[in-house]
């Protein structure tokens, strides 16, 4: 209904291979970006720091994992571990060189987790599928163990947690206690937008195709000249880079402080749910998955007070677990390909409106 595709023809291959060939999609994207930018002036403190910032951060981590699971077909349960590496790397970097801009360190910390990710990606050449899940589980538990056992990582802080120092960007406090929610939100938004754009570029180009080739049939991929190990390692590295940056953002711009417990195995499961529910192999699906899995429990908690019935916090917590569990099963039955496929089908219906097909 909203689409007017007539007259949108392509005269160059670059236009034909564009990520958003239709003008209406470009307009939609612009509207979303504009809304995201004006949000801080409109939304309240709670909305920003408890909903939007975490949602964007989880979306970034989901994109990272999606690059690995959705695009390259390599199952990983070590996402939280790699996020932890990013967080601690950023913490150490900013303690050694406090005057360097914090956003730089957040991005640089991604390279550290990329290195670690690639290291734990090495076994992916010989082992596949569930077996590979074990290799990444090894990474998860080993990293989690390091975060508690190596005091150097958290500057020998007796509580074992890292306290985020105050850092400024353009004169405004961005991290630490007196950083305003708006500033933190804008920084997170900028980083996530940039990295999503880069992920989109990667996925639509030569590298994305070789990843998908390895996912769909690695034998055929190898026979047409794609070297499996470099492709898989690159996938692990890029995916871990995204998780690392997400980890750094989580600690510096959301929690403000963090104990090792934050980067537990449950976090890895949570992000894996987001990828699956959002839709394997779809960037926009990652945003949907993160939104659904993260925002839903918050919404559920807000529901009972609306109806005036006061339920004990614990019960609500248990109910949330049950509902999330039931939802995951229900969702997989309804649409195994995730929210992205629902979005795609809806868009297709709009494009062929009023006709059915």
């Amino acid at each position: 209904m909203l689409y007017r595709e007539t007259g949108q023809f392509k005269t160059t291959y670059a236009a034909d291979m564009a990520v958003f060939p239709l003008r209406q999609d470009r307009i939609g994207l612009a509207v979303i970006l504009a809304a995201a930018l004006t949000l801080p002036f409109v939304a309240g403190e709670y909305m920003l720091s408890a909903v939007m910032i975490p949602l964007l951060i989880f979306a970034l981590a989901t994109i990272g994992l999606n690059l690995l699971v959705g695009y390259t077909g390599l199952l990983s349960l070590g996402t939280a571990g790699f996020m932890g590496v990013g967080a601690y790397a950023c913490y150490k970097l900013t303690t050694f060189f406090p005057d360097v801009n914090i956003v730089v360190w957040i991005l640089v910390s991604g390279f550290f987790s990329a290195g670690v990710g690639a290291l734990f990606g090495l076994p992916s050449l010989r082992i596949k599928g569930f077996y590979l899940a074990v290799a990444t589980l090894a990474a998860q538990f080993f990293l989690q163990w390091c975060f508690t056992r190596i005091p150097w990582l958290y500057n020998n802080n007796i509580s074992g947690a890292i306290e985020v120092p105050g850092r400024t960007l353009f004169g405004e406090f961005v991290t630490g206690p007196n950083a305003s929610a708006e500033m933190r939100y804008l920084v997170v938004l900028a980083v996530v937008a940039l990295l999503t754009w880069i992920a989109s570029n990667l996925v639509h180009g030569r590298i994305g195709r070789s990843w998908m080739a390895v996912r769909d049939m690695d034998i055929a991929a190898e026979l047409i000249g794609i070297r499996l190990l470099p492709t898989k390692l690159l996938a692990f590295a890029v995916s871990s880079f995204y998780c690392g940056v997400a980890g750094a953002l989580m600690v510096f711009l959301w929690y403000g402080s963090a104990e090792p417990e934050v980067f537990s195995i449950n976090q890895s499961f949570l992000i894996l749910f987001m990828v699956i529910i959002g839709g394997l192999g779809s960037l926009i699906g990652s945003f949907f998955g993160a939104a659904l899995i993260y925002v839903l429990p918050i919404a559920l908690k807000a529901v009972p007070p609306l109806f005036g019935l006061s339920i004990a916090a614990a019960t609500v917590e248990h109910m949330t677990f049950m509902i999330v569990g039931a939802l995951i099963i229900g969702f997989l039955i309804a649409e195994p390909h995730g929210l992205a496929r629902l979005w795609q089908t809806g868009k297709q219906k709009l494009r062929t409106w009023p006709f059915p097909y």
Partner: protein
Amino acid sequence: MTILYAIFVDPFVQMAGAPDLLVQALWDGLVSGVLYALIALGFVLIFKASGVFNFAQGIMVVFAALTLVGLHEKGVPAFLALALTVAVMFVLAVGVERVVLRPLVNQPDIILFIATFGLTYFLIGFGELIFGGNPKAMITDQLFLPRGVVDVPMLGGMVSFQKIDIAAAIIASLMVAGLAVFFQNTRIGRALRAVADSHKAALSVGISLNQIWVIVWFAAGLVALAAGIMWGARSEVSFALEIIALKALPVLVLGGLTSVPGAIIGGLIIGVGEKLGEFYWGPLVGGGIESWLAYFIALAVLLVRPQGLFGEKIIERI
């Protein structure tokens, strides 16, 4: 040089020095190995029969134990509670088959794998809701499980064997033997293996897929209950158990996803390896390596044999 010495030589010196401590560590390793094997067996059962990597097996252990203890707390006599728990596990098996498996029958494995995650979350929430979240003591004496310790002087020192551990080892071995016979010789066992190879083929020869899956999930439920009881007896019944259930993964992978003997031997290797590693090498790096050592052992083996110790060799046919 001293580091190399500390890693490669010193632990063995200690082992020789205090053989009884070694035996004690070995015994503890064996017992936890047996319990890992029991949990892994639940995974293998379901994977062999339905090709589903049932991640919820871990939580089923906790859920079964919790149900047993919860019922007992609510005044139900021990053995009746046991029978009721078995019934609950059966209902769970039927529910899972009807709600989760049937609609997702020909979806790719990863979708079913994630569905079991959903089941895990559901069971956590449901279990906590009904029986409360705080840890509970296992009702060992009501079930006439032996208590106390047997101390055996050996090799110049004293090695203590928990009676409960002995009972656990015996029960586990009985279960394992029973399952092995069940798989190899009974009609249903063969049907299970047929279903595992190919759903379509099994259907074509008239094996009722739904029936098989209920049986398999029920059997896995029983194994989970047994594991829950044994594990609960050693520590206490709480949701922390779920993380320990994760340890079954390396056991499975080590032993090969589809072989029952593989699960047992894998369990023992991991159990012993972990205990020895923690006991002798742990202090070198600040202890607590038990949490990740199991995975590294499994990883090491996998790099040598990508299909695990007992799995069939994967031949790529194009």
